[in-house]
């Protein structure tokens, strides 16, 4: 499921695709920053085997569009695209890819960081960790997109 700049679904992610979307011919940006979130082999002292991601696709797309809108308000010159993967994702494989382009590097770095922080705060996506000896749902933030404090925290980290 995707529209032009954001997407969610099963199947491997392609970083080049989001890079192309933000930095195609004619877009004479000075900087493109990318982020790839990959599956870590260790978590909370456990050896991770793989992750399974579940999402509420329709809501995730709406949430993703809102995140883009927020990023645009903070960094009007930045252009951002990203994708999140669902289903089984193996060790070291990407679960999320983000590309941010802007005339200068500061905005591109900040927008890219802001987007991953907001994804973690509000995207209706859940990971289930399969490890040696069992599996468990990972639960992080309670998703409240209008929580001003969370938005400010994401902005602070982006500018840190």
């Amino acid at each position, binding site marked *: 499921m995707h529209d032009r700049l954001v997407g969610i679904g099963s199947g491997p992610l392609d970083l080049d695709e989001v890079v192309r979307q933000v930095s195609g011919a004619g877009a004479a940006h000075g900087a493109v920053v990318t982020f790839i979130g990959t599956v870590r082999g260790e978590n909370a002292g456990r050896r991770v085997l793989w992750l399974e991601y579940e999402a509420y696709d329709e809501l995730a797309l709406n949430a993703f569009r809102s995140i883009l809108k927020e990023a645009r308000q903070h960094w009007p010159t930045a252009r951002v695209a990203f994708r999140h993967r669902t289903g089984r994702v193996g060790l070291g494989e990407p679960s*999320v890819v983000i590309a941010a382009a802007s005339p200068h590097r500061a905005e591109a770095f900040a927008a890219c960081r802001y987007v991953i922080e907001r994804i973690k705060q509000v995207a*209706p996506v859940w990971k289930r960790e399969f490890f040696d000896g069992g599996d468990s749902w990972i639960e992080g933030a309670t998703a409240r997109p209008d929580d001003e404090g969370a938005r400010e925290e994401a902005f602070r980290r982006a500018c840190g």
Partner: protein
Amino acid sequence: MRVRVRLFARLREIAGSDELPLDVPEGATVEDVWERLAAAHPSLAAHRRSVSAALNAEFARMHTRVGAGDEVAFLPPVSGG
């Protein structure tokens, strides 16, 4: 009136279903839908404080009114990325 409830991740597993119809009175809120759901699946009740909600694929507050045929989703704490 009838609404369609969608559940995800841990909540889905507790209820044993990712989607179920639920009858609620006219004028019911998202909170009322949750109450009805938790009455049918008591082990969900303990999750009330960490749950967020969506109405027709938009985030919603618990006091938001629902209408016939609406899709009401309950979301455990998220862990994307």
